[in-house]
């Protein structure tokens, strides 16, 4: 009896909440959070149309577009790994100071004294390598399906840019632990860039923030890694996704 009363009160309350202005200001008319969800073609459309997902997905896609054997989910996985890296990366930022004096010991502390610190750092590292791999495989998949052909030529170009930003993001992140691996891998990498014809020395100087790798390089690459490159990448991602839809969804069956 008492239980009945309680649940009655609860449902009354939820009704009141759903009728409130605050609730209806959050959820659009037709949203499943306003009118409930029962499985029907109309409601299936509403799920997308009345949520922020509508920015990403149309209401309907070609049947073959959801075949995992066609896309292998590689583009979606790359995007998801990017989100994953953003989340774990933000966590890491709380415990990291990009100076030569503190970077390495901060990571040491993160691994030994911070709850889940080691786990999150591991996940960040492995997800980063996976993302390079999945972006690369995504490109191969798109090429083998001839999906770069008109009208999708420009989206291919954007995609190649995204691959480069992915590599740059990974490479700038490589320096941040400030251990022997980071320092010398980046030394090898930036020495290569120094051989760019005409303005090679300048390129190297700008990238390193000096003639040698040092604490200025660390700050520079940190800013590139956590702010500038993700910012640019997200803009290119937005164009990439928008063009996928504008060019008629993903390429058709072969």
């Amino acid at each position, binding site marked *: 009896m008492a239980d009945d009363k309680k649940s009655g009160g609860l449902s009354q309350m939820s009704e009141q909440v759903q009728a409130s202005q605050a609730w209806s200001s959050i959820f659009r008319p037709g949203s499943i959070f306003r009118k409930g969800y029962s499985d029907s073609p109309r409601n*299936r459309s509403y799920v997308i149309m009345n949520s922020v997902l509508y920015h990403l997905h149309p209401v309907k896609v070609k049947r073959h577009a959801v075949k995992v054997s066609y896309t292998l989910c590689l583009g*979606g996985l790359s995007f998801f790994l990017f989100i994953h890296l953003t989340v774990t990366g933000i966590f890491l930022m709380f415990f990291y100071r990009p100076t030569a004096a503190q970077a390495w010991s901060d990571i040491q502390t993160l691994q030994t004294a911070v709850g889940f610190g080691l786990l999150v750092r591991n996940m960040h590292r492995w997800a980063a390598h996976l993302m390079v791999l999945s972006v690369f495989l995504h490109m191969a998949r798109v090429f083998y399906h001839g999906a770069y*052909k008109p009208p999708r*030529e420009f989206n291919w170009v954007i995609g190649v840019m995204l691959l480069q930003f992915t590599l740059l993001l990974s490479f700038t992140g490589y320096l941040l632990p400030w251990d022997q*691996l980071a320092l010398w891998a980046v030394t*090898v990498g930036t020495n290569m860039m120094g051989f760019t014809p005409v303005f090679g020395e300048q390129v190297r100087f700008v990238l390193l923030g000096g003639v040698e790798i040092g604490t200025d390089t660390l700050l520079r690459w940190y800013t590139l890694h956590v702010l500038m490159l993700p910012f640019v990448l997200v803009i290119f991602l937005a164009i990439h996704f928008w063009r996928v839809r504008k060019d008629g969804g993903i390429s058709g069956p072969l």
Partner: protein
Amino acid sequence: MTEIPEHLRKRAEAAKAKAQAAAGGTTPDDDSPAPDAPVGTVPSGDDKIPSHLLDRGTAAADLPAPTAGTPVPVAGGLAPPAGSSGPDGHNQRLLTVVKSGSIQDTRATPVDKIHVWPHLLLAEFLAALAITLFTLLFAIFVNAPLLELADFNKTPNPSKAPWYFLGLQELLTMFHPMVAGVTIPGIGLFLLILAPYIDKNPSRRPEDRKFAISLMTIHLMFWSVLVMIGSFFRGPGFNFVFPWNAGLFFEL
């Protein structure tokens, strides 16, 4: 009042001016709104209207009307040609011909479509879940490397770039740094970006794209093999070693 799109207004003006010029030098300096030229006087050279339709229109206009209706005055003061009024005294004029394929073209083939929710979203969710699980498990069992503090006076032997640049580092052993580090990857990247503009073959079927597919496969294999040699088969001094003899010199 309806707003007329700029391009339509311009097109209408151009057509009006053309019709005016063709309607004879009779009213070349007429400032008043252009008279609606009857169909019969539209020049047959007007490429907007297919000639066979024009001919039909002209023929219809020339036919004597079965019942003599009173000619309806037309705006602009031009009297319609005799016999141009239809039954019930209405004038029938060809206003415009919408060529097939201009606006009413629809995709003839129906596309088999399904709802994004639940089909696509479910697949995406599962993929995201799977990759998270994989990263999580991998992260639990394999630690990310953290070597000793960076030391400028202690160069590790071998010094390797991140794995995705090891192909380039491998090229460094064969060519001058400018060729290996800039020219070859630069050309490769340039060609990659331009691929859609170079490959003019419209077909997407693998059997029609043997050359493109072979070229790409060779390209991908080239880099993959270089990366693998650089990763696993290079030891101290970046000399060639077999990992099963000399051990691995590779950190992710």
